[in-house]
């Protein structure tokens, strides 16, 4: 099993190797010539290969943004599909450089795994999907229902908490992958399927008849989805973190993929600092000063990536909601570039 393989690799590395020193991630990635990114592989809108085999998705685009910042080429990324079970082991053992796989930031994951959560790219929450035929309009009516869930996720824990605090009986059926869980839900093995709300919309698209299924209105938890890196290399963490922030700042300043070349000639001091026309904001990160320009030119700003992958320009049609800019009532806020 893949998880056992990566766990044994981790054990071997820990037993007979010494820990890599800090501030070497960027050098290692540049030497390798490509970024290795942990992705989902089966989640529509976030990380999935298209029929031609090219990786697409919101989390995928984030990794491509990091690659654009380093190499000025968003295709210099290798994607490794990971299940919920082996994603952290793969990152801990050094198999991947960054994990961009709809991973929720929690206290225990931040403190006891030796990992850092660089930036919240998507504010999400957990929901339920049921068949319309059950005539259920609220999650509170699911007393004694069977619920399919993916093993080892925060969804599994939140599910138990929610049903317990509402004094409802619960039968959980857990599966190793989200795909198996959805298949079991579709076959009628369980009444409801639960995962992050964004994932529900994505999985619904893959069902035989999406119109027969409805997502219930309740959001039962906070799921801040974040990119994850290893402890110990602050420069690498900064690169990942600020890649997200420049994309948010670019949307705030009105810089997009289409107009980024014109914006190079702009008089606005913030835009000039963002695109590297003024200031030396790339060198402390080990990158060129126009690294943010590279990100916007190849990937676009946060809003463009959102709409293209999971928003109105995609089959999922998720509204910005909490992921709107802070100026529009959402939570996406980029610290100033200065």
């Amino acid at each position, binding site marked *: 099993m893949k998880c056992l393989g990566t766990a044994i690799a981790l054990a071997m590395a*820990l037993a007979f190797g010494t820990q890599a020193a800090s501030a070497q991630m960027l050098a290692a990635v540049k030497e390798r010539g490509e970024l290795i990114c942990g992705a989902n592989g089966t989640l529509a809108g976030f990380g999935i290969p298209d029929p031609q085999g090219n990786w697409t998705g919101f989390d995928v685009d984030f990794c491509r943004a990091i690659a654009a910042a380093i190499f000025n080429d968003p295709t210099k990324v290798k994607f490794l599909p990971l299940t919920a079970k082996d994603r952290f082991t793969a990152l801990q053992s050094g198999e991947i450089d960054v994990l961009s796989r709809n991973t929720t930031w929690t206290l225990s994951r931040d403190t*006891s795994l030796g990992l850092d959560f660089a930036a919240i790219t998507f504010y999400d929450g957990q929901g339920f999907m049921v068949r319309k035929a059950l005539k259920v309009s609220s999650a509170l009516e699911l007393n*004694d229902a069977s619920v399919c869930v993916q093993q080892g996720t925060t969804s599994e824990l939140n599910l138990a908490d929610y049903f317990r605090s509402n004094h409802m*009986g619960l039968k959980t059926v*857990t599966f190793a992958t989200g795909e198996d869980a959805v298949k079991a839900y579709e076959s009628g093995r369980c*009444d409801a399927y639960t995962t992050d709300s964004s994932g529900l919309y994505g999985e619904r698209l893959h069902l035989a008849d999406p119109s027969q299924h409805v997502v219930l209105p309740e959001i039962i938890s906070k799921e801040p989805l974040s990119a994850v890196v290893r402890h110990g290399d602050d420069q690498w963490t900064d690169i990942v973190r600020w890649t997200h922030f420049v994309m948010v700042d670019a949307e705030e300043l009105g810089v997009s993929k289409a107009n980024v070349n014109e914006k190079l000639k702009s008089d606005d001091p913030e835009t000039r600092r963002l695109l590297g026309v003024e200031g030396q904001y790339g060198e402390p990160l080990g990158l060129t000063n126009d690294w943010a320009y590279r990100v916007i030119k190849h990937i676009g700003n946060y809003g463009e990536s959102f709409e293209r992958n999971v928003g109105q320009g995609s089959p999922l049609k998720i509204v910005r909601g909490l992921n709107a800019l802070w100026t529009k009532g959402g939570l996406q806020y980029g610290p100033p570039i200065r």
Partner: protein
Amino acid sequence: MTEAIQGSVQGNPPRPARRFGSIALQIAIVVVIGVLAYGAITNVVQNLARAHIASGFGFWNNTAGFDISQTLIAYSASTSSFGRAFWVGLLNTLLVAGIGIVLATVLGFVVGIAKLSRNWLVARLAGGYVELIRNVPLLLQLLFWYNAVLKSLPLLRGSVTLPGGGILNNRGLFLPRPQWGPHFGIVVVALIVGLLAAAVLRRLARRRRERTGEDLRIFWPLLGLVVGLPLAAFVLTGFPLSFSVPQAGRFNVSGGVEILPELGALVLALTIYTAAFIAEVVRAGVLAVSAGQIEAAQALGLRSGAMLRLVVLPQAMRVIIPPLTSQYLNLIKNSSLAVAVGYPDLVQVFAGTVLNITGQSVETIALTMAVYLAMSLFIALLMSLYGRATAIAER
């Protein structure tokens, strides 16, 4: 070297100097391995601490927080610990392994002997079964049985009600849960007494047969002891048994004993797969019995059933038991494929969910491997004891 060999052939031990050298070398190798292992373990602990990855078994008593779909002991998401989840997973694995071993042995023996039958159709069917099942990977067979089992069962709306109050649908098989009355202990005691008495009776009958050749028909007395005695106790203590019948609700069936379709699919797949291998092992054992034995048995006038039971199988067991042990161990290890169908066995619960929640992959995987090792060594020990107990004393 030649002297040592000649010496041991004649019954003399090798010369003292040689023996000392050999012992010293073995001690040195053990010490080197011990030092390497100790160094590796301390290195792991140090590296984990330096990378700020939590290590040790401190997580054992933390609240689990997740639900398990089949628990043979009391377990609750809010109050049970990860340690309790470990025991739940372990018991589920033992359940699957136990049922699988028993059923696979029975089916394997039947198919193995059927393959040796003189009936052409029976032999070919058994041969076809063995060839097909042995050559398809177990994971594929398991997924096949899971989907076949699930797809053929009705949805909750169309549940089949079985005579006796059971309910069958694709959530599982729900049987009436027995509830023990006050004097049920007496029935259990009667059952134990009956089993012991039956064992004694079999021993006496066998000794009589070996002494005088008279084959006592003890089937009905045995049955009377094992079944009749507890039954009599049951009647005399006033039928201390009632059943709580499962009820179908809006989403699920409540009450009653629940048998998950995942368990059914796993047992089915493991049984059918391992039985194919056991069939070949049994066939090899039977063929290993020398032809002279069979001819002698036929000359004595034994029919094929009695010949099989009294002459062939006891001698065949010597050849069957070691590979049979291997097949049992394979079955126990293959039960970890429960991950693929969502059955909460040890690997799924502990080396899956608990590993992901706590992030401590080294400890959980190491403990899971140690548990499988302990189970396998235990089965191997039992089988070797059985083999020694039933071995034919050679002259």
